[in-house]
Every structure is written in C-alpha cells, then in structure tokens.
C-alpha cells in the first residue's frame, strides 16, 4: 500500500522543515560535542575565534578541521597540510554521489547542487537518507539545505563555546565527548540499515576498516570501504540473481 504523496511545500517551508528536523536529531548533540573539541583545539593552537568560526563554515568536516588546525598550528608545510586534508575528504565523494540522485530532478542545474553538496557531511548524509523518502522530490534540495544549516548553526555555536572553554574540561569529559561520534554514527547507521546490502556493508566495513589500518595500507579507509562495499554489493547482486 503506498501512502498518498504529500503536497509539495514552498522552498522556504521545506528549508525550515529540514532545519527543524535537526532539533530532534541525536546528531545535533554529537556535533555540539565534537565541535566543542574543535573550538578548543583552535584556541590551543593559537588561531583566532573568528578563524575557527570560518573554518567550521567553509570546511564543514570534523576530521579535516582537526587535521588542518593541528598540522597548520604545528608548522607543517602547506603542501603537507593540503594533502592530509585532501585525503581525509575522500569519504565525501561517495556520500555526495549517493545523495545527489535522490534530490535532483531533470531540470536541476549543477549549480543548485553545490550548496547541498557543501552541506554533505556524515550527520546530514545519514539523516537525509533517513528522512528524504518522505519529502516530495521538489522540496528535497531545500530540505537538505535546511538540514545542513541546522547542523551548521549547532556546530558554529559549539566552535565558539569550545574556543572559550578551551582545555578547562576534565579529561573524562573530553573522552566522553570524543566517544559521542563513534557511538552515534554506529547507532544511526544501524537504524538506517534495513536492507541486507546496508547491513553487510556495515559488517564488512567494521572488520576491514581496522584491519587495513592495522596492516598500514595506504589510504586504508578508502580501500577498506571499496573492498567491503563491493563485497556487500556482490552478495546483494548474487541474491537478486538467485531469486
């Protein structure tokens, strides 16, 4: 039984719906916790609060920002920092490729996709995959921008708060904040994983990720992701063929 399609909203309403969706999302807490750490890091390495603020808006990727702040702050050469940041960003490519076909319509210009692509980060990606099926296609780009903005506001606030709190947090609390990321990512991807394909991709990824890192494979995350994802995909295809 298919549900009646929801009537499309105005772009502003769709945007606000996406924005509001972040208020009940666990990722808002995760982002807040993570970005307190990033704000504190920026402070400790001698950057200004304004710089930290802009790093969150422009880069919008936790791992890249941590690398950028700590490497640049420690005096690494610009080339080295660029390469390290670039390598950390590879995971953004498949997320964006998986998301764009969901929000695009035949008349959508590439230009309109640049903002949702910029907003794409793990939190936004996981929630978008979960919530978009219920959003009329006309509204999906605005909805994604709303999601990204909502999370962005949280992250920016946390960056500033963390900057001024810097290093006054007890170690156990810092550890707890750091642990929010793997915990929330794990639980929410589990929730999203209803199909066998997703469950296999998760399971294989959990195993191969640390394994490739342990074996010190270059670009370990990329290769473990490709290997695990392809294995999961092949099992999925085999099942389809044997049906």
């Amino acid at each position, binding site marked *: 039984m298919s549900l009646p399609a929801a009537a499309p909203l105005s772009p502003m309403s769709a945007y606000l719906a996406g924005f509001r969706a972040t208020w009940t999302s666990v990722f808002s807490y995760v982002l807040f916790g993570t970005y307190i750490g990033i704000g504190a890091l920026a402070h400790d390495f001698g*950057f200004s609060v304004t710089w930290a603020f802009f790093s969150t808006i422009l880069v919008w990727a936790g791992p890249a920002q941590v690398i950028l702040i700590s490497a640049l702050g420690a005096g690494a050469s610009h080339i080295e920092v660029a390469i390290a940041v670039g390598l950390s960003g590879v995971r*953004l490519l*498949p997320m964006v490729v998986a998301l764009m076909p969901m929000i695009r319509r035949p008349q959508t210009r590439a230009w309109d996709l640049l903002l949702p692509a910029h907003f794409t980060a793990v939190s936004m990606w996981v929630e978008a995959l979960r919530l978009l099926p219920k959003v009329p296609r006309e509204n999906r780009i605005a909805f994604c921008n709303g999601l990204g903005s909502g999370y962005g506001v949280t992250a920016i606030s946390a960056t500033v708060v963390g900057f001024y709190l810097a290093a006054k947090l007890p170690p156990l609390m810092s550890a707890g904040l750091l642990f*929010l990321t793997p915990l929330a990512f794990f639980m929410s991807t589990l929730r999203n994983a209803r199909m066998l394909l997703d469950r296999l*991709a998760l399971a294989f990824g959990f195993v191969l990720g640390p394994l490739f*890192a342990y074996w010190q494979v270059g670009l370990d995350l990329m290769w473990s992701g490709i290997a695990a994802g392809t294995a999961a995909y092949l099992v999925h295809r085999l099942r389809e063929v044997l049906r």
Partner: protein
Amino acid sequence: MSPLSGELGAYLALILVGFLPNEVWRWLGVVFARGLDEDSEIVVWVRAVATAILAGVIAKLTIFAPGVLATVPTGVRLGAVAAGFVAFVVIRRSVFAGVIAGEIALIGGALLFAG
C-alpha cells in the same frame, strides 16, 4: 611560513589548504552523479562503499581511539559500544537511548577500571 601578515596568511591558508582540498571531493561528487539514476546499480554500489567507509571510521575510532579517548581501556570502549547496541535494540531502536547508554557505560567503566 607565509610571507603575508599573520592574520591574512591564516585565512588564505584556510581557503587554500583547508577549504579547497576538502571541497573538491564534494564538487567531484556532483560531477560524477550527473545522469545517475537513484536506483541505478552504480548508485547502489556507491552507497554500499560509503556505508562501509563509515563503518570503518566507527571501528577505527573505537579500537584505535585518538587523543584523550585512548586513556580509556579498550575493553571499556568496546563494552560501551556493546551496551549502547543492547539499549538501542531493546528500546525501540532508539538512537538516543543507545548513545546515552553507551556514554554511561563508558564513563562508568572508565571510573571503575581506571588504569
């Protein structure tokens, strides 16, 4: 180091070695996704790869914990993830419940088994 004044140099660095090397992957994503249908086999495969990469990130963060998280014993970290998983399954697949349970388990475990 940049020959420009500190402030301007820092912002230039932010854009050139922070924003650009990272954002280029998002732009490539838009380019590669052109003409791809949501249900095409390629997109299905890409989603599997993205999911697997994320799983790898989670596992690595838990096992090879960075920074101050490394002061918590590995067993406690793994146990906390397990506790979160149980809570998640038991409490209507609630992510919040899983996260809260996992955090309590981590902090409790860290205090109990402090090295």
